[in-house]
């Protein structure tokens, strides 16, 4: 895949095998240093992971590499030749395939059209008119998907695919060129375990062909599973760059957060006997299977399953955000189900959605405005917002949740992912919710902020609240829950008490392979 281009590259006498050398890269935004003298190397056929907390500079480094941002200092050499990409197109032409965290697909177009969008195969009609060569496009895409080990119909519109499938299309699109360097920014965030395995198999195959891979991830186990070398970034500087086998996981975590994190999942047990929430014959419109379960005071009830298993949908149903066709909900002794989020909030139910930027926060409003949004009644006097009441609500919340923002009027879009998630949690604490439904609360959040979110969860159950936790990250679900419900196809296939927890059995039930 890389041949023919290698001949043109490779400086004579240069270190053979070095694909990429970034030296002394520095970049600042508004006087804040995002990167300080960062060095980064990538050898032919190497998988080099970059890890670090949110805001450590991982994405900035990648953006500098592929020409989205320009560094103030430093140089980039590609196979011994100094390069300076001024646009993503330049980087693409030089053989850099970048898979960004965000998806860049046209939902209305088919898989094949998206994959080939950058270079559409054309043929000449009547010898002159260039028209789309649909047959070649479909055949090419089919072949590409096959080499990736992905089973998808090239004709299917992207909008009909699951998030995980869309991610695979994104990868196929990036690989629809002669890639010498593959850059993946959190590629596994929305993938199932077996899809992650397929992706890793693909990376290994590319590796065998000499492609270098830059792999950015929050998931330490994945880094060990795939990477040869790892660079730890902290506060825009390289904290360590070592071969993976020379770096123990605990040591890596310490380097990432800059301090010791002894246990990833610190769980305090607060489960009481009193039932806080009981669902009886609760039936979601989407699955039409009656569900019955209950959550006790001070308990974390885990809901787990593969993508599309319905556990996230159950949370939305409880919160009045997804249609429910039958069944009853008893919260604090009161019957009847919530028909809208506003009604759910009035009954003390709060919901933290999976995608905080799309559903959890109004990004261009301030921290303060987001915090008071579900609590407007409490900060209003005579139909006006009371400055004093707002301050009395916001200031202690920001301190208690350690929300790191320059001011309470700073727009949440300027905050790091972990701090954004803390704002989402904090607003529900202010709303005095007694039931907290969390959908992937630590998705895409760094290790340090994760631990803080878990601490907040413990605080909440300690105060007698109940948490319904849907997490596809099994270690987290196991670590934080008192009991676990396993979902598959919208039904509960198994229930476990904490002392019965076993990763193997839960995975087996989730995948429908339990005996």
């Amino acid at each position: 895949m890389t041949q023919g281009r290698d001949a043109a590259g490779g400086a004579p006498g240069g270190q053979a095998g070095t694909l990429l050398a970034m030296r002394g890269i520095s970049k600042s935004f508004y006087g804040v240093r995002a990167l300080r003298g960062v060095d980064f190397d990538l050898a032919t056929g190497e998988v080099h992971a970059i890890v670090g907390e949110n805001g450590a500079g991982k994405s900035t480094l990648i953006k500098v590499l592929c020409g989205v941002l320009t560094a103030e200092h430093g140089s980039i050499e590609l196979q011994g030749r100094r390069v300076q990409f001024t646009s993503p197109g330049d980087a693409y032409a030089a053989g850099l395939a970048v898979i960004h965290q965000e998806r860049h697909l046209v939902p209305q177009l088919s898989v094949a059209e998206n994959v080939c969008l950058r270079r559409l195969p054309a043929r000449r009609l009547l010898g002159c008119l260039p028209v789309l060569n649909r047959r070649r496009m479909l055949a090419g895409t089919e072949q590409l998907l096959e080499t990736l080990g992905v089973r998808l119909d090239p004709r299917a519109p992207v909008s009909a695919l699951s998030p995980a499938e869309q991610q695979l299309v994104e990868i196929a699109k990036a690989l629809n060129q002669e890639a010498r360097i593959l850059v993946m920014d959190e590629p596994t965030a929305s993938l199932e375990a077996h899809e992650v395995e397929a992706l890793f198999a693909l990376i290994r195959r590319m590796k065998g062909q000499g492609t270098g891979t830059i792999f950015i991830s929050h998931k330490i186990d994945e880094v060990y599973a795939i990477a040869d070398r790892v660079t730890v970034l902290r506060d825009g500087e390289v904290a360590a760059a070592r071969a993976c086998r020379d770096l123990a996981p605990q040591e890596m975590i310490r380097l990432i957060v800059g301090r010791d994190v002894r246990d990833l999942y610190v769980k305090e047990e607060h489960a009481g006997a009193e039932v806080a929430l009981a669902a009886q014959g609760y039936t979601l419109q989407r699955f039409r299977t009656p569900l019955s379960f209950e959550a006790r005071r001070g308990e974390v009830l885990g809901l787990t399953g593969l993508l599309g298993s319905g556990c996230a949908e159950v949370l939305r149903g409880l919160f009045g955000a997804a249609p429910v066709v039958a069944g009853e909900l008893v919260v604090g002794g009161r019957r009847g189900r919530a028909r809208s989020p506003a009604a759910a909030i009035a009954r003390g139910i709060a919901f933290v959605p999976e995608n905080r930027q799309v559903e959890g926060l109004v990004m261009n409003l301030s921290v303060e405005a987001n915090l008071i949004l579900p609590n407007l009644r409490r900060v209003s006097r005579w139909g006006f917002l009371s400055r004093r009441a707002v301050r009395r609500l916001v200031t202690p919340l920001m301190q208690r949740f350690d929300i790191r923002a320059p001011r309470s009027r700073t727009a949440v879009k300027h905050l790091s992912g972990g701090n954004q998630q803390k704002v989402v949690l904090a607003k529900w604490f202010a709303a005095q919710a007694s039931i907290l439904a969390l959908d992937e609360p630590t998705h895409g959040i760094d290790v340090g902020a994760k631990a803080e979110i878990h601490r907040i969860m413990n605080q909440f159950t300690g105060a007698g609240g109940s948490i319904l936790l849907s997490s596809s990250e099994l270690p987290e679900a196991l670590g934080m829950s008192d009991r676990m419900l396993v979902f598959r196809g919208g039904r509960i296939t198994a229930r476990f008490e904490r002392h019965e927890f076993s990763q193997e059995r839960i995975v087996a039930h989730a995948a429908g392979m339990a005996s």
Partner: protein
Amino acid sequence: MVQFNAAPAAATLAGGERRRSRWSLLLARYPWLITPLALLVMSAVAALLSDHFLTVRNVTNILNQAAVLAIVSVGMTVVIISGGFDLSVGSVVSLAGCVGAAVMVRGSIAGGVLAGLGIGLLVGVMNGVVVSLLNVSPFIATLGAMVLVRGAALLFTGGVPIVNLPETFTVVGTEGVFGIPIPVLITALIFAVFWVLLQFTPLGLKIYAVGGNREASRLSGVAVNRVTIAAYGICGALAGAAGLVLTARLRSGQPTAGEFYELTSIAAVVLGGASLTGGEGKVQRTVLGVLIIQVLSNSLNLLNVHSYWQRVLVGGIIIVAAAVDRFRRTA
């Protein structure tokens, strides 16, 4: 005092950034300064080119002429912040003015005012219902309303202006208090009310929130449909109020009045730096946008530029302003 609009991130522009002039530094830090500065520069140029520009009479005249557009634009600001926009305001101006005039001709001024405001509110609420509950795009919904309401105005009047309004009403368009025309005073009052509404009330915050992220607002317990209907209702009622003021100034209900107000008011909001994607915007900046448009056409009048050329220039300035705004945001 509460302000919802987020302050810009700590933009200190200290070391590392390339050196910039003091002016561009100031603008980078306070981007909203660009609108008042543009207005000042335009006025200064107009004052240099024409001796008549900076006279009390002319300035009063500018404000008086800007009044109707300003009232419509305040309502438009509310709808645009909430994430929509309203093409029907121009037609509402004329229908509300005509219905109000007809009631007044039959003897009741108060009834006429109520009828005009009521018609505006009704059309606005209907727009809001169609957009939020029926999920029709604001463009299509209000485009339909624009044509429908204009037709209704023509039907109602038979295409003939309604004249012979009571003198006690038409003084609103001709008289002033301490030299300030009544339409300007009405505009100032409306401006103050909606500035307070947007900046200091729960409804104001909800309007910003729904425009910024509808789904997140819904999941925070905001009754998003109600907020959308309220925003369109406000816009419609203000268009009705503008129609009454226009009727007083023209001393008649004109079925063809108010044309292009929908577009000019959207332009004023955009000149004020609001985003058509919703969630941002301020009435005070919209008023500056209105003044820019009015000062421009006034000074072109003073300079004897043909009115056809005026249109070309105003249109061009709107495009340039929007492009500059985009550039500023992405830079």
